[in-house]
């Protein structure tokens, strides 16, 4: 099972987990990224490149399924305006054994951060600022280049 969704709607995490659990295999690993509530951000706005985003995420999920022989891979990314505490991204992988599910899950989120065309903007009070890229994200993504 490969599931990719880019949407303005909140992530339905129970439904996404349920789909991974019934995809087969006894191990499900997930990662959820939330708008941090503790650093003064009042609102997060996410812009993306329609069409190209979905294609990039589908390639990413297919790469993970092939590399770790997953039974399921899910990537759900929210776009538009979000409040602190809300989910930005959910990725998950299911497999017969836990190491495959966990490694694939880490791969999905690491690569998503460098390979998919999303841009974050933060509102703090009246000020809006585009978020800059982080070198550590590139390092994390690089480690999957065998």
């Amino acid at each position, binding site marked *: 099972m490969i599931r990719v969704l880019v949407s303005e709607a909140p992530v339905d995490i129970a439904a996404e987990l349920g789909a991974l659990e019934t995809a087969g295999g006894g191990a499900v690993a997930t990662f959820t990224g939330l708008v941090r509530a503790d650093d003064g951000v009042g609102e997060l706005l996410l*812009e993306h*490149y329609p069409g190209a985003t979905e294609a990039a995420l589908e390639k990413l999920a297919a790469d993970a399924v092939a590399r770790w022989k997953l039974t399921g891979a899910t990537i759900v990314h929210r776009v538009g305006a979000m409040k602190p505490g809300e989910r930005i991204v959910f990725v998950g992988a299911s497999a017969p054994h836990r190491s495959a599910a966990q490694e694939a899950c880490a791969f999905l989120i690491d690569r998503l951060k460098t390979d998919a*065309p999303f*841009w974050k903007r933060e509102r703090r009070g009246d000020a809006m600022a585009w*978020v*800059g890229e982080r070198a550590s994200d590139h390092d994390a993504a690089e480690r999957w280049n065998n």
Partner: protein
Amino acid sequence: MDVLYFAWVREGIGKGQERVEPPAEVVTVADLIGWLAERPGYDVLTDTAKLRVAVDQVFVPLDTQLGAAREVAIFPPVTGG
């Protein structure tokens, strides 16, 4: 050719998309950016080290040849997840 702008590139130019007909000497993506940057109001394209591109929805280096590209997107480094 359609050119798309995202994030602060879009904000700087003031539009998200336009159709352009570059001259024959525009061969690479970098040439295209340089040609666009000469226009008034396109200063945001001057510092190419801060820019990333996709040709027909695939991320590529700036020295990539345009060939028969139909859609070129110009944007800052991505920050999703």
